[in-house]
């Protein structure tokens, strides 16, 4: 086995037991024990953790239920399967973990990564609302944004030394992270993200967003709208420095994306306060658990 194949094998092994972010851990525990927790509470706590969201979606779409159609919306899942079932799904899969327990070698930290993921999810949904996309699809925009960088979790945790080097290289050479990932580890977070999305069985649209969000030009498929929206939201999160996902020198968004989405850069100013408001609300919601 060559180096890259070995790296991929180690990452695949990690993905099969990947923990969720500690950010939502205590809240999901609290909600599961509280018989008065509302459907909205449940929806919110799962929506705030990319790993938990992915895992719950995986279970819902697994052979366990044998549903005929793919469910990409948590709201629908809660209505179909009921609050109790989804609570149990979430609790059973919310294994406490985090981006890394080796704090000395930590390239990304939980809070920064979480803020970035949530920011991209919320911004993608806001852009979709502005562009009057079908209300039924809004959740898919959110989830795709929330999960777009999921591939960074195994890299940061499994190859933590190399990941610190990859981040240092972005600073040194002013390069986007996905390029320095390839240089230091022969694999980028888009490829790793695709492994996760496949493992979780989250469908083609999600897979395309995760795999192509830095490779818009070479995208041949049908999920262009959600892909470009998430790419724009990702650019916004990096440019406005909301959260931190390792990309201090991201490539700028091609002008054609603004044209195709029919948005301007000014729109990001409008989005900024809304996104920050949503993140603060989420933060307060999650902190209630500690009181």
């Amino acid at each position, binding site marked *: 086995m060559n180096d890259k194949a070995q790296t991929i094998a180690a990452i695949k092994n990690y993905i099969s037991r990947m923990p969720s972010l500690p950010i939502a851990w205590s809240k999901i525990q609290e909600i599961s024990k509280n018989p008065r927790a509302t459907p*909205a509470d449940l929806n919110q706590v799962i929506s705030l953790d990319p790993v938990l969201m992915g895992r719950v979606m995986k279970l819902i779409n697994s052979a366990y239920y044998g549903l005929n159609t793919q469910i990409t919306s948590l709201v629908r899942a809660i*209505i179909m399967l*009921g609050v*109790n079932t989804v609570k149990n799904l979430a609790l*059973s899969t919310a294994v406490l973990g985090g981006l890394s327990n080796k704090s000395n070698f930590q390239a990304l930290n939980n809070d920064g990564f979480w803020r970035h993921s949530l920011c991209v999810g919320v911004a993608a949904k806001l852009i979709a609302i502005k562009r009057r996309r079908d*209300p039924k699809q809004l*959740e898919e925009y959110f989830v795709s944004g929330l999960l777009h960088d999921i591939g960074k979790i195994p890299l940061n945790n499994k190859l933590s030394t190399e990941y610190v080097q990859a981040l240092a290289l972005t600073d040194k050479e002013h390069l986007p992270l996905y390029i320095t990932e390839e240089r230091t580890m022969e694999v980028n977070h888009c490829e790793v993200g695709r492994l996760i999305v496949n493992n979780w069985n989250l469908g083609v649209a999600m897979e395309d967003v995760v795999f192509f969000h830095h490779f818009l030009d070479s995208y041949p498929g049908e999920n262009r709208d959600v892909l470009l929206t998430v790419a724009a939201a990702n650019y916004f999160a990096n440019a406005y420095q909301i959260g931190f996902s390792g990309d201090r020198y991201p490539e700028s968004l091609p002008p054609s994306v603004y044209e195709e989405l029919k948005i301007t850069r000014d729109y990001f100013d409008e989005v900024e306060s809304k996104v920050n408001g949503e993140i603060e609300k989420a933060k307060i919601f999650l902190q209630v658990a500690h009181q």
Partner: protein
Amino acid sequence: MAIRVTFWGVRGSIPTPGPTTVRYGGNTACLELRFGAQEKLIIIDAGSGIRELAGEILKKDLKKGPIDTKIFLTHTHWDHIMGFPFFTPIYMKGAKLEVYGPVSFEDEGLDSVVGGQLQYRYFPVNMGQLEADIQYIRLMELTKDLGDGIRMTTKYLNHPITVLGYRFEYQGKIFCTAYDHEPYRNIFDVPKDDPSYVEAAVTEGAQAAKEENEKVQEFFRGADLLVHDTQYTQKEYEAGKRGWGHSSFEWAIKSAHKAGVKRLILFHHDPDRSDDKLEELYGGYLAKIKGKTKMVVALAKEGETIEV
């Protein structure tokens, strides 16, 4: 006759013997289905009504050879499985039983959930002492050929645990069950000033609930006979029974009519509902729908047989 359905238990929640339920019956859910001239037997649910059905089977079927049948459970709430230990074929060597049903997430297998009633703390006979060859098979949503020209389709319904509705098609006739079932509803729809109000979830929830209800209607579309949950009146439902997993008479009648059902049986009677009260309600509903639908509507009655 293509399918003959006999009701051995029609009551919801708990058996209700006594003078006020003697006409419609106090046993919990159990239906006997007989298919075609060979009278092939399929049982739905193992509520307390299955005890008397067992007696009937021994009288009628045993002379044709060892008992060989399938029991389809709609779900594993107690009122739908409590008769299982009293279903005498489970004690008979040579009997072959297949028990099908859904299992809720993270629950034990169907064998523990159903057969687990047979342990000394609850019952004098242990599961290991059963002589029959019993297989437990977990079901999901599917269409299955049961042989002899019987086609079965299952559909998830809305109840606090996983429930399946059953649709049987045989010789051009359709028989369906839709219990225990509450209409899907938009549980995200809270007042705007409620702290948990999220506009996008409210919009999406409304759409999802509507579509899921349409899917249930499609599931029993065109049924010659539909047995539907009608535990509550609409007034009772709205006054505090939301989320309990049961339908109102009003909902069942409306959705069955919309789906072109030919005969609707009102089923899973509330344990507090006396015979007199049932008939009074039934009379009221009949008067309301008179001339508005071709659908025949009747109350489920223990011991009654319907052929389609």
